[in-house]
């Protein structure tokens, strides 16, 4: 067991974990923060995307010990109180979800895209979402929501 300390959504947390504990297990099972989902377990689907030190990563493909000392942001950390993050509000407004399972990863991935590229084209959005899979195939409204959040929609 090793002690890991990280900042999760602005709050410092420390826990003893096994080396094999994945970051997503740490979030869901040790911190009981179940907003981050596990979809495929094979690094393909992107339901588990969180930000580590400002960059989107697949938390099922990173060890908790590797995030020691890092700042982690999850879907639970986006809203301020009752005010949704603009990306969450855009997903809501444009019905960018059906079953909602992929949504946390989609939103976290989209937020990272706009950090890097504030006005992405539709093609750039589709390319960026390469690592996020929606089994309901709700991609059109997801793209629409991200374009609106970026203020790039006509």
């Amino acid at each position: 067991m090793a002690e890991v300390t990280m900042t999760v959504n602005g709050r410092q947390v420390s826990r003893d974990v096994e080396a094999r504990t994945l970051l997503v297990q740490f979030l869901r099972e040790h911190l009981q923060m179940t907003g981050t989902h596990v979809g495929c377990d094979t690094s393909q689907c992107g339901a588990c995307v969180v930000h580590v030190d400002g960059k989107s990563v697949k938390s099922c493909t990173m060890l908790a010990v590797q995030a020691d000392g890092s700042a982690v942001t999850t879907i639970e950390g986006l809203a301020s109180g009752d005010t949704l993050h603009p990306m969450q509000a855009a997903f809501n407004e444009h019905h960018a979800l059906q079953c909602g399972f992929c949504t946390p990863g989609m939103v976290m991935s989209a937020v990272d895209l706009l950090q890097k590229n504030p006005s992405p084209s539709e093609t750039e959005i589709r390319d960026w979402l390469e690592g996020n899979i929606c089994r309901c195939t709700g991609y059109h409204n997801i793209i629409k929501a991200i374009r609106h959040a970026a203020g790039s929609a006509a």
Partner: protein
Amino acid sequence: MYDFGYHQPSSLSEADAALNSASDPLLMAGGQTLIPTLKFRLARASDVVDLCGIDELKGIREEGNAVVIGAMTTHCEVAESDLVASRIPALASLARGIGDPQVRHRGTIGGSIANNDPAADYPAGCLGLGATIRTSKRQIAADDFFGDTFDTALEDGEIVTAISFPLPEKAAYAKFPNPASRYAIVGVMVAKTGAGVRVAVTGAGHGVFRDEAIELALNESFSVDAVDASGVDEEDLNSDIHASAEYRKHLIGVMAKRAVAKANS
């Protein structure tokens, strides 16, 4: 995933010490292949030695007529590097096409070539551009580094430290990706260098290889029309649910033409 001892050395000598003190260690770079492999118990280790804390393995710099990329440099860093974009745009473009953005944020060039997946992009980049692989023990030409599937010239405990890419006159990479994984069904790096044309193919065979027939043709004339069929034997190519050997052989020619067109544009 079975549990293991975890080590995060901050220097190569500490990494050596960690490797030497463990009974059955594995080195981890970005972990984007290794962690899934451990999760599915396709591999296990007494100890994982994570190279992420070794600063001397990171960064991109110019040395004479070469771009040198530290082994722990991520695909995203190579894709976004102004130096790589200006000196070897083909390499930036190759890095931009690996996996997806989240994988590119963690995955590294050193991990990719040490793993030598037969459908990975970087082996074609290294072999096509005639790179030299620097390790903790020696320097190895890409021509001598890559073996068959998942096999390399690396010895136990030998750590890739950097890859040195000589500047080509022109080069480009074209890939026909698997639509699900983004690994190459066939990927071809074509480079025109002072020592002739090099054509490296990934995805098609049991490991990356050079296509001598296309190299000969392009040495005569570096043009799209010069590229005829690949010279490799279909017997040596992969045939699976994604593509037959015949189809892959055809794709080598098509991707080589696309790469030449891109290099000449």
